[in-house]
C-alpha cells in the first residue's frame, strides 16, 4: 500500500454503473412497450396533442403581437410532458425559457406561464404555490437553484425532488458544471434533464461539446448518466421516473440526456434556414413524438377515433381559451415596477415612483385634451 492508495486519493467510485447506455433508451415500438400502462399512454397522448397545439398557438400569438417572443418546443413535447408527469405535486420543477410547456403540463395556467414572454415584468405564476421556479433565461443558472432547494428539503427531512431542465448549449455553461458537482457532493435529490435538441440557436452540438455524449458528463461527477430517445415519451417518462424515485429514495442525483430535435427556429425571431438543411428537419419529422406514440397505441388497439377526437377537441378548446385570454390587453401599472425591488422601497425609489406617476398623470391629462 502506498499513499496513493489512501482513501483521499484513490478513486472512490466505480465508473461502470454510472455509464450511460451506448444508444438512447427506447420503449415505443419495442417488445418492452407491451408492459406499459395503457392509462399512462393515453394520458401522455392527450398531453402531447395538447402540447403541440399549445406550441402552435403560442407561435401564432407572436405573429399577432400578443407575445414578445416564443421559444417553441415543437418536436420536444415528449420531454416537456414527461418531465411534468414524472413529478408529484410536492416536487419542484426548474424550467428554462423553452420549457413553458412543461410548466403548463404541471397544471400552471398558460397565460401565467407566458407572462414573461408576453413582455411583462414578472414571472406570472406563484413559484411557491405551484412549486415551479420562474423561467430562467440565463442558461443553466437555475440548475444550482434546484440543487440548493433539493438540498434544503433533504436537510429538512421533506420528501421533495427537484427536476431541473437545460439544453445542449446549457451544458457548456459553468453553472452546469458547478450544479452537477454540488449535487453529487451533497447527494442532493435532484434530476437534471438535458434536452439535446441539436442546436444552441445556430451552433450545432459538434461545436458545443466533444464528450462521448452529454450523458457521459455525469460520470465525472460521480452520478449516473442516462441516455434516452427524447421523442419517445414512454422512454423519457420511465427514465425520469426512475431517476426521480432514485433521488426520492436517497440515491442522489442523475443526469438524463434526451436526444430530440427543435423543429422550429430558436424563436420566432430566428431564421433556421441559415444554419441547417431542410433534409435534416424532414428526417426528424419522421421521428415525431406524437406519431411514435400513435403507432404504438394503434398497434395495441388503444387508439380509437374517440380518443383521437377527444384529444383533438380538448387541445382546440385549450388553444381557443388561451387565444381569447391573450387577446385581451393586460392591465399594467407601471408604478408597480417599484413595489418589489426591496421589501420596503428606498427613499430614492419612492421619489422615482412619484416622478413616474406624475408623468403618467400628465399623459392622461394630455389624452383628455
Amino acid at each position, binding site marked *: 500500500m502506498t499513499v496513493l492508495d489512501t482513501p483521499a486519493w484513490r478513486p472512490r467510485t466505480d465508473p461502470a454503473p454510472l455509464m450511460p447506455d451506448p444508444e438512447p433508451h427506447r420503449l415505443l415500438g419495442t417488445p418492452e412497450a407491451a408492459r406499459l400502462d395503457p392509462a399512462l399512454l393515453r394520458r401522455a397522448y392527450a398531453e402531447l396533442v395538447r402540447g403541440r397545439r399549445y406550441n402552435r398557438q403560442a407561435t401564432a400569438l407572436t405573429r399577432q403581437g400578443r407575445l414578445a417572443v416564443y421559444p417553441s418546443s415543437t418536436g420536444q413535447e415528449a420531454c416537456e410532458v414527461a418531465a411534468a408527469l414524472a413529478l408529484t405535486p410536492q416536487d419542484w420543477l426548474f424550467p428554462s425559457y423553452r420549457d413553458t410547456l412543461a410548466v403548463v403540463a404541471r397544471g400552471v395556467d398558460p397565460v401565467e406561464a407566458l407572462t414573461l414572454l408576453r413582455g411583462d*415584468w*414578472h*414571472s406570472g405564476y*406563484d*413559484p*411557491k*404555490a405551484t412549486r415551479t*421556479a*420562474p423561467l430562467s433565461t*440565463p442558461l443553466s*443558472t437555475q*440548475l*444550482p*437553484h*434546484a*440543487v*440548493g*432547494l*433539493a*438540498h*434544503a*428539503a433533504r*436537510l*429538512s427531512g421533506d420528501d421533495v425532488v*427537484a427536476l431541473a431542465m437545460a439544453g445542449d448549449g446549457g451544458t457548456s455553461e*459553468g*453553472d452546469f458544471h*458547478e*450544479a452537477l*458537482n*454540488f449535487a453529487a*457532493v*451533497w447527494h442532493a435529490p435532484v434530476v437534471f434533464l438535458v434536452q439535446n435538441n441539436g442546436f444552441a440557436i445556430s451552433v450545432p452540438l459538434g461545436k458545443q461539446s466533444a464528450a462521448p455524449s452529454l450523458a457521459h458528463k455525469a460520470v465525472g461527477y460521480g452520478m449516473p448518466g442516462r441516455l434516452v430517445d427524447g421523442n419517445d415519451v414512454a422512454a423519457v417518462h420511465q427514465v425520469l421516473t426512475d431517476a426521480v424515485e432514485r433521488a426520492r429514495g436517497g440515491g442522489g442525483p442523475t443526469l438524463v440526456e434526451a436526444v430530440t430535435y427543435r423543429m422550429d427556429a430558436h424563436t420566432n425571431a430566428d431564421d433556421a434556414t441559415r444554419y441547417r438543411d431542410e433534409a435534416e428537419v424532414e428526417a426528424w419529422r419522421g421521428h415525431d413524438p406524437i406519431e411514435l406514440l400513435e403507432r404504438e397505441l394503434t398497434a395495441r388497439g388503444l387508439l380509437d377515433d374517440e380518443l383521437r377526437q377527444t384529444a383533438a377537441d380538448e387541445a382546440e378548446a385549450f388553444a381557443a381559451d388561451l387565444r381569447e385570454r391573450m387577446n385581451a390587453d393586460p392591465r399594467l401599472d407601471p408604478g408597480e415596477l417599484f*413595489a*418589489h*425591488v*426591496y*421589501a420596503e422601497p*428606498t*427613499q*430614492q425609489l419612492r421619489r422615482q415612483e412619484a416622478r413616474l406617476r406624475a408623468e403618467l398623470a400628465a399623459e392622461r391629462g394630455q389624452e383628455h385634451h
Partner: protein
Amino acid sequence: MAAPTSASVTAPAAGAAPQPVPGRGIGSRKPATMAQALNRALHDAMAADERVHVMGEDVGTLGGVFRITDGLARAFGDSRCTDTPLAEAGILGTAVGMAMYGLRPVVEMQFDAFAYPAFEQLVSHVSRMRNRTRGTMPLPVTVRIPFGGGIGGVEHHSDSSEAYYLHTPGLHVVTPATVADAYGLLRAAIASDDPVVFLEPKRLYWSKADWSAEDPEPVAPIGQAVVRREGRSATLITYGPSLPVCMEAAEAAREEGWDLGVVDLRSLVPFDEDTVADVVRRTGRALVVHESSGFGGAGAEIAARITERCFHHLEAPVLRVAGFDIPYPPPMLERHHLPGVDRILDAVGRLQWEEG
C-alpha cells in the same frame, strides 16, 4: 495649505467620547476585535434561528481563512456550517435554492476578487427574485465579502468591489467600520428579508474596541448613516475601511484650524441622503473618501447627490479622495494607492477656503 476663512474657523470639537448607555452591559465591556464581533454575530444568529445556514470555502473545520466562522461547525454541525466545493457561482447559486425553500443562507466569499464568479447569480437572480416573483419569493441571502486592501495581500486579495454591487437594484450593500456595527449590522443583514452584500473591511478585522458580547449595544437598522464626529468647517463622508483614516485626518486637521465632521455611511444601499444632506448643509463643504478607484465609484454618486440636494449651501465643489484608477497595486506599493491623512488634508485645503 490654505487657511480656512473666519466663518469656518471654530474651536476644536469638544471631546466626543461615547457616553455609555445606562444599564447596558457597562461592566462586561472589554476589548474585542471586529473579527470576534462578526463571529459572535454569526453564532448568535444561528442560535436564534435554525434557518440560518453558513456556507463557503473553508468555513467549517478551518473556521474560514480569517477565522470569522471559527467554531460554528463545531457548535451547529456540518449541515449548518458547510464547507462547500470551491466554486463561488455554485455556492451562491445553491444558496438561492436554499433561500427559495425558506432557509436564510449566509454565504462567505473568501476574498473580494474571488466573488466575481458569483456575479451573475447575484445580478441575475439574487437581486431580482423578489421583483420577478412579485414579492412572493424574497431571497434572504447574506453575502459576506472580505474586501479592500491594506493587509499586504498579493494580487486579487485587496479589491474594493462595492461599486459593482451598489449599481444593482435589489441588493443592499452594507459595510461596517466599527466593532459594534460589525455585530449589529451583520445581525440586521441576516434578519433582513432582502439580499445583503455585506462588505467586511479586511484591514479592520483586527481593530479593537470595548464591546460586550453578552450585551451588545443596539445598532440602528440598515440604511442609517451615523455622524461619527461633529464638525463645523467641512464634512468627510466615508464608510468601511476609510473611517479610521478619516477620524485620524479630522484629528490632525485641528492643527490646521479646521473642525472636520465625519459621517460613516454604514450602508451604501440604501443610501441615507437625509443625514448626509443635513450635515453638508451645516458645513457647506464636503469631501467623500474611499479607497476604491474614484472613476465611477461610490464617491461619484454621493458627490452628485450632495450637489443636487445642497447646491445653494455649498461653498466649494464636493471633492473626492479615492484610490487611483489603477488595478490594485502590489503589497510593496499599496501605501501609495490608499488615501491617507495627508491626501485627505490636502484635499480639504482645496475646498476654496480663500473664496469663502
